[in-house]
């Protein structure tokens, strides 16, 4: 599939753009947190480290996702490097999918290295590798995948600035999904309820992927939760890429 060729090139592009520098900041942050709380008990230190570490991983990953994702397609059009792609025997959807796969591969490497860094510092603190963090990290990654798909979607038809604004807006609304649901149950006005329902179902429920507290506090997760979360995230990505490809299919690349 030609998408893999484009994905490999996108991966090379993002790596050569030195986005991996964020890992260095992440490492400094994690070590910094562990030093700051060094006077506390080991149990508390580990908890804070995991809490802050996972939150930082999510923020760093999302920042990269938004700021590279919004330029993913737009930059190709702006710099007209897209001419080199669309004039080859490639379908437009293969370009969208290829660019997307390239970026999520970069983020995967990024998240993996950040995880290793967090595991290592935690190991130095607790004396064992805390594999329980893995589901939380996996869902952080799925959330990033959804956000990249949102940014890619917007970048097929609007400028990076507007794409960034829209993606951030949906990111915030996506995390407010449980509150939206609460409103749905408490409001009686039909029109308002319909609007809220529309937003609730259209915007991805990003809070669904946030199991950080549960993991850090060692709370049990619902049965098959991870499977449903993965299915939901990948399904949402699929739909967004499908719509993006549809928009991009007949787009004039002036």
């Amino acid at each position, binding site marked *: 599939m030609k998408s893999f060729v484009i994905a490999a090139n996108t991966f090379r592009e993002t790596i050569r753009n030195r986005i991996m520098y964020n890992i260095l900041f992440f490492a400094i942050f994690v070590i910094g947190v562990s030093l700051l709380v060094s006077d506390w008990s080991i149990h508390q230190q580990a908890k804070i480290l995991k809490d802050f570490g996972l939150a930082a991983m999510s923020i760093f990953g999302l920042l990269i996702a938004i700021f590279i994702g919004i330029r993913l397609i737009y930059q190709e059009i702006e710099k007209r490097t897209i001419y080199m792609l*669309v004039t080859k025997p490639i379908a437009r959807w293969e370009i969208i999918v290829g660019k997307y796969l390239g970026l999520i591969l970069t983020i995967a490497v990024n998240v993996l290295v950040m995880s290793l860094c967090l595991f290592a510092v935690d190991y130095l603190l607790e004396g064992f590798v805390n594999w329980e963090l893995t589901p939380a990290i996996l869902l952080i990654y799925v959330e990033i995948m959804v956000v990249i798909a949102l940014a890619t979607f917007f970048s097929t038809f609007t400028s990076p600035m507007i794409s960034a604004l829209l993606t951030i807006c949906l990111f915030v609304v996506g995390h407010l999904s449980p509150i939206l649901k609460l409103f749905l149950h408490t409001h009686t006005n039909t029109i308002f309820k319909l609007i809220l329902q529309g937003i609730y179902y259209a915007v991805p429920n990003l809070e669904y992927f946030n199991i950080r507290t549960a993991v850090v506090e060692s709370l049990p997760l619902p049965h098959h939760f991870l499977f449903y979360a993965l299915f939901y995230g990948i399904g949402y990505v699929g739909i967004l890429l499908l719509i993006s490809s549809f928009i991009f299919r007949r787009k004039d690349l002036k």
Partner: protein
Amino acid sequence: MLRIENLTKTYSSGFIPRRTTAVCNLNLEIEKGEVFAFLGANGAGKTTTIKAILNIISPTEGRIWIMGIDNRQKEARRKVGFLPDQPYFYDYLTAKEFLFFTARLYGMPKTEISEKIYSLLELVGLHEDAYLHLRKYSRGMLQRLAFAQALINDPELLILDEPMTGLDPLGRKQFRDIILGLKERKKTIFFSSHILSDAELIADRVGIINKGHLVNIGKLDDLLETQIQEVEITFQINNSQLPELKKQYPNLISRDSKVLIKVPSEQHTMEVIRELETRGGHLISVIPHKRNLEEIFVEEIKRS
């Protein structure tokens, strides 16, 4: 090989949308093995036509077929090579990496690519810069690389948008030779150009576009042949004949015992030759002067 039927492209621009027609009702058919020069001033519609052929933009009306396949299908572009008017590349890649990437987009097997890359880099004179990042390339070097990538899939149809732009005289000669080599191999070439002398040297057929309308199309030989401006006749003749001849042909130029007479059309050429022969002259040369492509082009543009 390439068929364009009723191609029209209009754009809307501005806050209150205003429609501009870039190409209007264009019909073209390019045969296999033909070298076709698409000529026009800036903004005439050349690049818009090329973009429509390659499915970079969608026509407002009309359809295009490449090798009998609708150009919207990706299969139509499998045997097409494209050189854009400006080389737009990923500057973080080296020339070798870029050509490898391009070859993979055509689905070429990895085992065949390396050899192909080196032969192409050698062909365009970039073999010593294969490992240099493209951000360090000059405009001319990028143009050479653009040509190399257009040839990577051994295309049957080459679409070249202003191929000579940005090249030094040596580069232009090199490109011309490559195009002539491809012509010998019966490749079909569709190119747009501002440099009419190059078009005159390479093309079999020429189309002139102005303000989106095709204003003239024909075989280059036919276009030039029908446009003979004057004929220069050179004779060797005894100097004693000169005063009489000067009366008869006021535009006569003489030096030593040679005379040059310019005749306004082919029809009078034989009359003049006979006249000079009866006066004991010896014919040295007869040179017809055709209008060059540039003159025809300017005239067509003014007329339309």
